[in-house]
């Protein structure tokens, strides 16, 4: 067993996927010579050659649009959009084509494309480098939306995403790139669409994904001191969403709090709350509460810690939940 970082696990997953299938190609801005601004694609060009891992011009619509064409040719492109806030120029290609092509072609065109997106804040970055746009994509049918929180999941879910016949947006929790886990890779690939209970508990259920799963676990540790036994669920895939596991959990605890970095208004917390309301109505002893970023533009880095949900904000929500 060795300590593997989340970024390292992703790098290994890309490596192993390229090894296993020579139709897997990687491209994007700065992914080849530089190995990616976060080094997630480090040394892949050296190992697999510049036909399999290459830099593109600076144009995100171009990256996703040509990935679609390459997939139509028969490749399995894994492209990187450098930061969350730079996915927007590719919005049309993602929403109108990547998501829809299999359905509109009645299944004759498959698009096994993975779009990797380092996302979220907390790294002291400048504007547009700390966004959490997952809800902007999850609303569009046809896309799978994945957001791992641990190194071994990062490995397993990226391998599963690359193998998936469906297009996948793969959100990487950038402030957890350096999180370590003692794990021997490769680990078995997890199927997409299964949430996991990260911590058992009875007082209330914290539901999260990506970078805030660790925050929830820390909150649960802190809560233990106050005598609260919090369950923590890592959703892992926003689409398909594993509702059964979530309903199960709420049937157990009666209280749920959804935690994410994205602004609360119209975020994934709304969808999860609405689903739980409908499917676990009689189990809810309190409203499903939502803890997230404020409904403001992502702030300057010196102020981001005020914006991001932290242990206090989570525990405050637990308290509010318990007050019902």
């Amino acid at each position, binding site marked *: 067993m060795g300590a593997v970082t989340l970024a390292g696990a992703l790098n290994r997953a890309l490596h192993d996927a390229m090894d296993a299938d020579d139709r897997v*190609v990687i491209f994007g801005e700065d992914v080849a010579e530089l190995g990616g601004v976060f080094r997630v694609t480090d040394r892949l060009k050296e190992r697999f050659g510049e*036909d399999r891992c290459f830099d*593109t*011009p600076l*144009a995100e*619509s*171009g990256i*996703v*649009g*040509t*990935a*679609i*064409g*390459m*997939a*139509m*040719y*028969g*490749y399995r492109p894994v492209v990187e959009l450098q930061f969350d806030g730079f996915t927007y*120029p590719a919005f*049309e*290609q993602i929403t*109108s*084509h990547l998501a*829809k*092509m*299999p*359905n*509109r*072609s*009645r*299944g*004759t*065109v*498959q698009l096994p494309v993975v779009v990797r997106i380092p996302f979220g804040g907390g790294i002291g970055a400048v504007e547009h480098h700390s966004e959490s746009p997952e809800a902007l994509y999850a609303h569009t*049918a*046809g896309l*799978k939306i994945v957001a791992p929180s641990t190194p071994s999941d990062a490995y397993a879910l990226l391998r599963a995403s690359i193998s*998936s*016949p*469906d297009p996948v947006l793969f959100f990487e929790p950038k402030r957890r790139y350096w999180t370590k886990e003692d794990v021997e890779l490769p680990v078995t690939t997890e199927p997409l*669409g299964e949430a996991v209970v990260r911590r058992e508990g009875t007082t209330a259920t914290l539901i999260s994904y990506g970078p805030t799963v660790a925050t929830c676990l820390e909150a649960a540790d802190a809560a233990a001191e106050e005598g609260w036994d919090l369950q923590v669920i890592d959703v892992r895939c926003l*689409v*398909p*969403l594993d*509702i*059964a596991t979530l309903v199960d959990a709420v049937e157990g605890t009666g209280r749920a709090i959804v935690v994410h970095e994205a602004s609360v208004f119209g975020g994934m917390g709304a969808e999860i709350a609405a689903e739980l309301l409908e499917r676990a109505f009689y189990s809810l002893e309190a409203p499903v509460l939502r803890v997230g970023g404020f409904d403001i533009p992502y702030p300057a880095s010196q102020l981001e810690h005020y914006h991001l949900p932290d242990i206090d904000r989570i525990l405050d929500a637990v308290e509010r939940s318990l007050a019902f």
Partner: protein
Amino acid sequence: MAIDPTFPDPRSLLPADRPIQLLDADGTFTEDPDWPIDLDDAQLAELYRLMVMARQIDAQAITLQRQGQLGVYASLRGQEAAQIGTAFALAAQDFVFPSYREMGVALVRGVDPADLLHVFRGTWLGAHDPAKHRFALITISIATQALHAAGFAMGAKLDGSDSCAVAYMGDGATSEGDAHEAFNFASVFGAPCVFVVQNNQYAISVPLTRQTKAPTIAHKGIGYGMPGYRCDGNDVLGTYAVMRQALRHAREGNGPVLIEAVTYRMEAHTTADDPTRYREDTELEQWRARDPITRLEKFLRDRELVDDEVVETVAQAAKAEAQSVRAALYDAPHGDPMELFSHVYAEPTQQLRDQHELLQAELQGQDA
């Protein structure tokens, strides 16, 4: 810091001052050693047949729309030479990425026109298998298909295949960011891709002068280091010759080519449009005199490859085909609504399974 001296004179990428034309509006043929053609008599006749066919089915489609059988339809009338000349130069292994106006190209590729029209009818979002005829589904989001073509061509190059990708687009489409990014990606990666811009002078109501101040659309090529060819888009021999050369250029590993085929949209933008609001009849008259079919017919008659009888036979065959397209569409049932949930994902999600059930219940409720 000077221009790379190994770079060929950049000015060679610019189009000629006048559009390439082999067959003039009167059907007079002038050979051009720069733009050779290699068509035998049978092929010339075939070009004629395809153009007549395209026009006839196009007219049928407009009729079908008026009769409420299609939701909307975008006519290619006037653009037959631009489409059929270029498509005729394609090899079997090439792959076409059309916009929504390329029924002429589809015909050449062997796509069943009824399948294309089912899309305008609203039966399905896509009704032919793109892989079969190497002709993608029609694309309505302007210019987006140009990137798919560039990506396909990048794939072909990586794979060492000899396929070219071809994107068809309009003059208006050249204004979109995606067109730019497609030109650039294809060029940076030296991908075998040909961009065929049918400059039909309008984007719905907006004339070319409001779309660009470039000397010509073909002048955009040099900005990507790719040749820009400009041709008379109503001359089927010219469009063929230019496309043939472009495909050879691309296939031989020299990267993409931009073709501007100067033509005119003789009909409304779509059946939903009213062109009297924005253009004059006199303009239409001018272009009617440059009709692509008339001039080819004159040429073929001069060469005695066609006479009244052939013209009549071709017309009858086109009518018969249009009739069978009509038969395939008229009062055709709509698709199976339960298929709406298919192919969204390879495996349906929980929500889709629930919604499938909901719709089934709704339908049963209505039956009951």
